[in-house]
């Protein structure tokens, strides 16, 4: 339960809420713990909260690794449950 997944911010809503895209899944998450996030930025998401911003390269690296390990699918199932 300690894993965090990078996701791209696709929409900014009121009250520090953003819509992010994990692969094909879209999800509302909270931006209450990070600052200055813009559309297109990548954030590391853990239990529905962005913990911090990450670079595109870091996001791609992590997502690639998680996908190969099969972890991404498990985590995405949990998110969309």
């Amino acid at each position, binding site marked *: *339960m*300690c894993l965090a997944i990078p996701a791209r911010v696709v929409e900014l809503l009121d009250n520090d809420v953003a819509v992010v895209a994990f692969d094909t899944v879209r999800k509302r998450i909270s931006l209450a713990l990070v600052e200055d996030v813009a559309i297109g930025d990548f954030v590391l998401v853990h*239990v529905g909260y962005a*913990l*911090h911003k990450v670079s595109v390269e870091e996001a791609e690296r992590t997502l690639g690794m998680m996908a190969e390990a099969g972890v991404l699918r498990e985590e995405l199932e949990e998110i969309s449950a």
Partner: protein
Amino acid sequence: MKYVDEYRDRDLARTVAAAIAAEADPDRSYHFMEFCGGHTHAIFRYGVQDLMPENVHFVHGPGCPVCVLPVARLDDAVELAERYGVILCTYGDMMRVPGTKQRSLIRAKADGADVRMVYSTADALRIARENPDRQVVFFAIGFETTTPPTAVALKTAEAEKLGNFSVFCNHVLTPSAISHILESPEVRDLGIVKIDGFLGPSHVSSVIGSQPYEFFAEEFQKPVVIAGFEPLDVMQSVLMLIRQVNDGRCEVENEYTRVVTEEGNVKAQTLVSEVFELRKSFDWRGLGTVPYSALRIRDRFAKFDAEKQFELSVKASREVKSCECPSILRGVKKPTDCKLFGTVCTPQSPVGSCMVSSEGACAAYWTYGRFRDQQPSKLEAAE
């Protein structure tokens, strides 16, 4: 080599493995404890141990929040759901953990208690808003990464004056647990575990920074390398630890600089200290009572503190006697040393908490390690 060979950075992995083999002194042995369950998982999943020289060993530490929660606290949660009839919200990992008499939240739910799995504290708040005539309790567990989201939930509940929401707080702190492993007297009873260095938690450090570990690198004279979760991160961090051991250095080094800074996420830390304060002591499953190792909700938020709102009667915790979780969480024993491993206790019907979460050492052994330990050829068949 199979797993890493297939991995796209195989050349890099080979280079790191070669450097480790070249630099590990054959006259020494190296025991490194990985604190995080995420590392345990990565080590098994990718067969990182197979890439290490024979004198480099991984000791699996207590770093899975599900595994370290004492049975008594889980029994309290079951009581909240059953006796007080609250809507009990919790992260999925907690559902199957067996409490006293093998009672888990999922069993309580099957028997009619209103237990709901949530992905986020935001979901728990929404459930409270949608059920104004029911009490909703969020069963909060986790290390420093899950604590800030709980803090946000408490502040939101206060701002919205949500009268039917509270948090049963079980958040614990990693630096104090690591110190405790090194200095506690119980270590003598369970046996001494040799540790030459630590793979430090990575996502935890993205929140609290690398700085909190400096104290005990100095105080306990153990090197620490904050390590990312990729297999290559783990290998690179092992190399950095070997170099420190060889040089006789005891420092906090950061392998995961692409995410972790020295000071961490200050906004999150500020929120956490606004809402929580240290508990004088807290029981950890497997580690016993650890001073100043957990958080409780500050008085200002007493209205939202389930421990103050409900009288919880469960006091003594009863662990299953033959379960070796306490020794496993300290790295003193291996899962295969447990009599129940793989016979009575499996991920489908776990007896101890180390078998429940995929980050627990027993579950990792079951899923990957047992094939390697017993029949190496099956490892390939299993993939």
